């Protein structure tokens, strides 16, 4: 491996891959075998964090940034005048192994621009994963991109070596996709997703009968959507997200605030702010759907098409549903505890366990670590002090905002004035 050449390529192809936000290395169950290298049975590990605060868990690179497509939102688009490069299979293998041995990474996240054809590109990605698994006995984490339009046969092979596969649908609606990436269509994204979903189900079923059935994409599938590039509202975004979770059993949907990279007038101008606060609210909604037992329609629906930026989506839901409160933390069931603003699932777990020993009062709850600033208006406990005034939703919101400082205060005042 020539050091200088590799160095140059790495700079180009890591830079081009950084807009893919997924960096998860969890959820697999690949154990070290035959005293080889690596193990992916534990929880995911972030080995470092970029200066923008994102986790660095995997060596995230493109195999090449040559691409035959011209999607407006993508930095690698054909018409963009940038330096191009391509790794050899062996170079990616060497980088992965040597970074892994130094405990820099949990594994590899390999994506690619599409060169020649979808199948040819997918074949190259599979070749890297295959070499790592079969020749290097590497048991670290491998995340491969499913190339839209790749054949079923290649997708089947990919899943045998990768822990996770993902296709980024990028644009939340079909209309938006037509506008920004006219050569692509939704069906091409969905085809490999369906294939992988079916294979996962089949391999799992076979594994129950025959123990030696190999693993197939044990960490499942994920996808990503760009936020704020094509004018969708939060309702549309979360409906799409919900559809993908339900229809393809996805492990994760990622939301990526659009980083302006083009002078194309179909897109936000270069220099416009990345919608990070909105992105954060979407993730909170995603969590409420997946872990807190909310149905997406409770949070976003025809009447409420956008999330509030100044308060979190659970608080916003609670303020619209004051008739469900106050909740008695000493008797309420888990579902309702999880709906109290200011209580995370860890606090819910602690409350449920602790109340078996004694009735809980404010002091206990404070020490357990719940955010009383928000929670106090929505709950009662073993105390005769509680909110007795019949406060309106606006009043409660005002009181909560008055007593809190958001890490987004600066962004908030900027972004609010845009809509004001």
């Amino acid at each position, binding site marked *: 491996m020539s050091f200088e050449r590799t160095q140059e390529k790495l700079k180009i192809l*890591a830079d081009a891959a*950084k807009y893919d936000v997924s960096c998860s290395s969890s959820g697999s169950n690949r154990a070290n075998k035959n*005293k080889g290298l690596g193990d992916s049975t534990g929880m995911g590990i972030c080995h470092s*964090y970029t*200066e923008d*605060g994102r986790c660095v868990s995997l060596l995230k690179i493109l195999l090449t940034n040559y691409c035959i497509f011209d999607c407006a939102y993508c930095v690698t688009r054909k018409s963009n005048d940038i330096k191009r490069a391509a790794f050899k299979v062996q170079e990616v293998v060497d980088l992965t192994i040597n970074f892994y041995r130094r405990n820099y990474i949990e594994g590899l996240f390999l994506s690619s621009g599409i060169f020649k054809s979808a199948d040819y590109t997918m074949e190259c990605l599979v070749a890297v994963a295959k070499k790592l698994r079969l020749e290097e006995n590497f048991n670290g984490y491998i995340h491969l991109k499913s190339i839209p339009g790749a054949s079923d046969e290649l997708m089947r092979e990919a899943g045998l070596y990768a822990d996770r596969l993902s296709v980024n649908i990028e644009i939340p609606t079909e209309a938006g996709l037509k506008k920004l990436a006219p050569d692509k269509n939704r069906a091409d994204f969905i085809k490999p997703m369906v294939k992988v979903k079916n294979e996962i189900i089949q391999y799992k079923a076979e594994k129950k009968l025959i123990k030696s059935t190999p693993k197939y994409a044990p960490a499942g599938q994920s996808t990503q959507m760009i936020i704020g590039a094509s004018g969708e509202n939060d309702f549309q975004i979360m409906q799409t997200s919900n559809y993908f979770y339900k229809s393809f059993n996805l492990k994760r949907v990622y939301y990526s605030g659009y980083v302006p990279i083009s002078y194309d007038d179909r897109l936000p101008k270069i220099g416009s702010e990345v919608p990070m606060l909105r992105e954060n609210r979407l993730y909170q909604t995603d969590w409420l759907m997946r872990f807190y037992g909310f149905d997406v329609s409770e949070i976003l629906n025809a009447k409420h098409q956008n999330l509030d930026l100044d308060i979190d989506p659970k608080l916003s839901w609670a303020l619209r549903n004051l008739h469900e409160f106050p909740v008695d933390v000493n008797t309420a069931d888990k579902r309702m505890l999880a709906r109290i603003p200011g209580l995370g699932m860890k606090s819910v777990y602690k409350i449920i*366990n602790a109340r*078996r*020993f004694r009735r809980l009062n404010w002091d206990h709850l404070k020490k357990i670590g719940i955010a009383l600033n928000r929670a106090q208006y929505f709950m009662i406990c073993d105390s005769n002090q509680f909110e007795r005034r019949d406060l309106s939703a606006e009043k409660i919101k005002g009181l909560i905002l008055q007593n809190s400082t958001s890490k987004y205060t600066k962004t908030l005042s900027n972004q609010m004035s845009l809509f004001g």
Partner: protein
Amino acid sequence: MQEKKLIYDGTFDGFLSAVFYVFEHKLNAVSIVNEFVVQNGLFSEDIIITTENEKANRVWTGLKSKLSSTGSFQLYYTFLSEQAGVENILLDYMRYAFSKSDKKIDKDFSHPSVLKIAQTAKMVGREKHRMEAFVRFRLTKDDIYFASIEPDFNVLPLISKHFERRYADQKWMIYDIKRHYGLFYDLEKVEIINMDFPQLFDFTKTDSDYFAKQEFEFQRLWKDYFKSTNIESRKNTKLHIRHVPKRYWKYLSEKQPD
């Protein structure tokens, strides 16, 4: 009654032997202190505890029957926090555990000692996880992947398995500079070792006298990668520092000046 002070040797078995002594003599006004931090008290009677594995095991077995598996590892994690006075919180916790015959108390988060131990164990767990993340191996000339750490808590015993499973085909060593001991894996098993380093040895420097030539190249590539993967327009230094507190920077290759 005069308070009794039980002085033990700093080991977990030593601590459990002291606990055995407390129960054996039905002591109430008592505190347990590590011999390395003990101060002479005017108003207490010092008792030196000898570590006896058999007694320690009896206490540990008894505890395990009174706690869930999470409870017993939280207890051990908390011990490894080495925080001042932690022995007495642990003692209080154990007394509470032994006093209840009907239920396991380790999830009673409304009890001060139980909550404190759950929280301390979480801190130690976080440090363990950080070390699994922030250890940076550097390849030495004699083919050993070497890393030095200075964790806030004594987490080497907790991370051993993780690295043994993961790096089964390379020799490696993780050395705790603060506590002067390390783990060494020789392709067969992990051993606890003590080493003498040359005087003025700078652990943060990769010196070509000791480290392999290719080590410099891979550090360079990793630093370049780290830089390329950053998105300038999303810069968020506060968040960055919260995830990677500055005290860990000196051992992270990507954080070294060019």
